[in-house]
């Protein structure tokens, strides 16, 4: 196959693979979807490692240990933009913590952090019209 043929093959493959985008049309559709029943709230408020802060309005649904990492799950009754701002502000105002990198797209966002001997990420995905799921991973820095 000559170089032009190879390039054409790649273009075709690119279109094929792009059709499987994990955060493509389906996720944008979620932004318009009505929210169903909310996941069950934990019976007690968890104390996260390193005194990791809560964003205003966070509802925790589970906390588990994956080896050295603590993974807390929950949700905010907000769209992705305000949810991202809520966690960015909470981490920046928490004693000892800094935001190392943050990024917000149409339906998802990340706030990466470090402080108090811990590091990790708050991952947010807007799952329906007015709710954003939150997954916080905290590991030793």
């Amino acid at each position, binding site marked *: 196959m000559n170089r032009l043929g190879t390039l054409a093959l*790649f273009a075709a*493959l690119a279109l094929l693979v*792009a059709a499987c985008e994990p*955060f493509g049309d389906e996720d944008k559709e979620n932004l318009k979807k009505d929210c169903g029943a909310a996941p069950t709230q934990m019976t007690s408020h968890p104390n996260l490692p390193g005194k990791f802060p809560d964003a205003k309005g966070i509802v925790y649904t589970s906390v588990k240990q994956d*080896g*050295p990492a603590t993974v807390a799950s929950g949700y905010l009754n907000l769209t992705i933009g305000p949810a991202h701002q809520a966690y960015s502000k909470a981490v920046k105002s928490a004693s000892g913590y800094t935001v*190392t*990198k943050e990024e917000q797209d149409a339906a998802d966002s990340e706030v990466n952090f470090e402080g108090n001997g811990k590091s990790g990420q708050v*991952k947010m995905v807007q799952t329906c019209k007015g709710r954003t799921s939150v997954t916080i991973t905290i590991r030793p820095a």
Partner: protein
Amino acid sequence: MQRLVPLLLALALLPACGGSKHAAGKPLLVVVNAPFSRTPYLGRTIENGVRLAVAEVNAGGGVRVAGQTYPLEVRALDSALSPAHAVVNVRRAVADGAVAIVDEGTGVNASWRFAAKRGVPIGIVFEGGSSLVDPKTRPNVFRIAPTDHGVAFRLAEYLIPQRLKVGILHDDSDYGSNGAAELTRAFADNRSSVAIDETVPADALDLGPQVLRARRAHATALLVWGRPATIASAITAARSAGWDVPVYTPPTGADPFVRQQLADHPSWVDGLTFASGRLTAEIGTGPYQNFAQRYQAAYGLDRVGVRTPSGEPVFQPPETAMYAYDFVNLLAAALVKAGSTDPAEVTRALEQVTVEGANGDERAFNEHNHEGVVDDDVYFARFEGMTYAPVRNDALSRTLPTLPQTG
């Protein structure tokens, strides 16, 4: 494709509106310091990533700094995986007036001081050792590559919940030692998950005794952290002894050398699982595929030299090239932001610019953080038939697509 059309138009139009209005300055030197003679694939892919970014910057008229436009030029120097060679190369780059150094990472613990004297930024694109990057004490060192910390902790987070008894083998290279230090920390609170922890010689052809000790320690998985040759030797030792233990590795497990060494026994590669930085971003695979096409159109496919069971030739996706490419684009943005070609000014500006990376993700550094790849972007992929696919039993990995590797 929608993204490709405006990009090609922009590239075509930029030269017409750029160079003629501004005086052309002397080319700005970007040095690539990589182990071309010892790990040829790694050296070549870093150099190609740099050259592709430089070609695109120059096709756009060069970098416009304070009323002048400057083309970028590339010079490649072989570190031969030797810290001493790497230091000599960095000293030479600084003496020759390099505006930046794109570095595989070997020897940076010593070489950064020589670059720092003139404020020359070093962009590490492979080695992940924690001590290499520190914005406070090494302000001129940046990295776009998965960190050993991220890879080690993600491996621990993946393996411990599976209740595996892990036999850790790490070689005595810088790469192996740095990884071992992070693995010790990652498994510190779960030592019962570690069956044995052994150091092996980096150049050993036969790791039979060490692998046998791991088997006798009742390991139910091997975690091999080392150069590609170490990984190939460990797999050979296990499989030739009839031990079908699952094998996990850092990014070096995906190096073509591993498959080339095991080409006579392709089934031995099946099941090999490695951790690495995700190649595609949340917005989808389009931007990465666009980059891969341009890379492969310029330099051809990085052929691994093996075939799938159905006979298709296998090529390597340009992962490390992508990191090198992104660093050069950040450098170009920093030159513009600094309004100066003084490397020290450029180093400071690197903390203030953001570019869209080759995979569509933002690439940026700041005063607190000189790392371009976050720990939570480390995913796992498993080999089957000489190509790999993201695993399905990890939250991040299962959202990622399998990228083309044959043709």
